[in-house]
């Protein structure tokens, strides 16, 4: 099986400081990969380099495109990478405000993505937007409201709808449940799990929350000081951690 995403030797430095160093892994279709580590461990840098938001100093990010097979997206021309970002990739930001257009209605936020990939029929776009609002459990009555009038959890669900409406194959998520109340988190986790399963999505999720990765991720990478110190099946890394740092991380979680 060809990996959907193959990251090879990805490195990013900020001057003398290491962002991420020589990170390699394969992600297969339908798989969810979690990346955990403390603040400053390099997990967000890695995510941004993979998603094309940052230019890595070294390494390749091979993506299995629909038409040409595996292509190095780092070396790709900017317009082609942007198109990939609209059609095959999605990026869910920690703060919904960074991923939404706050001056545009909820329906507009979702419809805009469709228009970016060529949809022109207003009725069809509005219908698709309404359908997606329902899928993320936002009442269609709110289609003309701006996201600023939504709660944090609703904004996050709207951001997910905006991202998934174009039927991407790979979703990057940066702390998708961070900053939300735990009850809202649970609903979002259930929603994400359902969408991953129904759409056959692959996802890379960066978080510092081990409970979130246990429930969402098939595989896990643990980062420290820009390096991957341990990787494996999620429950194996959490239940039988091999690296001292992972052991410390797992044993530091407060039990409820």
């Amino acid at each position, binding site marked *: 099986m060809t990996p959907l995403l193959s990251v090879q030797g990805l490195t990013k430095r900020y001057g003398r400081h290491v962002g991420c160093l020589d990170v390699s892994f394969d992600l297969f279709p339908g798989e969810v990969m979690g990346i955990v580590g403390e603040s400053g461990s390099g997990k967000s840098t890695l995510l941004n380099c993979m998603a094309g938001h940052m230019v890595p100093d070294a390494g390749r990010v091979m993506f299995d495109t629909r038409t040409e097979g595996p292509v190095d997206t780092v070396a790709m021309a900017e317009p082609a990478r942007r198109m990939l970002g609209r059609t095959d990739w999605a990026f869910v930001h920690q703060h919904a405000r960074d991923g939404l257009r706050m001056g545009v209605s909820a329906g507009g936020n979702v419809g805009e993505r469709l228009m970016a990939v060529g949809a022109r029929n207003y009725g069809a776009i509005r219908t698709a937007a309404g359908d997606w609002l329902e899928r993320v459990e936002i009442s269609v009555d709110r289609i003309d409201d701006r996201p600023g009038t939504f709660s944090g959890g609703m904004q996050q669900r709207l951001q997910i709808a905006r991202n998934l409406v174009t039927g991407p194959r790979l979703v990057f998520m940066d702390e998708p449940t961070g900053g939300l109340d735990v009850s809202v988190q649970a609903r979002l986790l*259930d929603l994400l*799990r359902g969408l991953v399963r129904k759409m056959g999505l692959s996802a890379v999720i960066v978080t510092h929350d081990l409970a979130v990765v246990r429930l969402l991720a098939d*595989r896990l990478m643990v980062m420290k000081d820009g390096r991957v110190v341990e990787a*494996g*099946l999620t*429950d*194996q890394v959490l239940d039988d951690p*091999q690296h*001292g740092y992972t*052991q410390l991380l797992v044993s530091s979680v407060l039990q409820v």
Partner: protein
Amino acid sequence: MGKAIIAIEGLSKTFTLHNQGGVVIEVMRGAALTVGPGECVGLVGASGTGKSTLMRMVWGNYLAAAGRIVVGDLDVAQAAPCEIIALRRRTLGYVSQFLRVVPRVATVDVVAEPLLTLGVDEAEARGRAMALLSRLNLPEALWSLSPTTFSGGEQQRVNIARGFVHPCPALLLDEPTASLDARNREVVLGLIEEAKARGAAILGIFHDEGARARVCDRLVDVADFAPAAA
């Protein structure tokens, strides 16, 4: 008896505690056993001898230090994560003592999930989940609620339903009757007997001696795999 569905040989386990002076604890050495189709093998031995550790190595959430753990055609001890994920979806089921679920998800959906993952139609998956919950005497009023607030016995029945809803060729059972009353214990033993009858290979831990005597064809004492005895 056909070819073994679960075959373990030369299996060892060590834990290295990096944050406690790098102490290496060897907990198991040279473990070996097989489970054939339609067979139920019970793991016995005092607490702390490694029954659960052995089960977890088969499930793949504990890493083996050495040895082979073949389930179906896959050596779990050497397999890549994606191979273990596929094995768990189709071939290997596990009823653990803990229920780990997304909070606020309805019980019926928790039980139906393994089928949905396999691509079974939603209505059929939910129908099969409901039939099993009903057989396990879980009141219908609870089906639409999250199991996180259920009693120990109720959670265990949800776990059992989730483990039995897809007919896996191999099944791991960690004390499946521990907190059940007589009537529900009987239902679970019936499920185990049916799984054996359809040819499933079962590896289980049963502290309930009556249950063990009824469903286990053989017993394996994990004390034989203690490093000191090897």
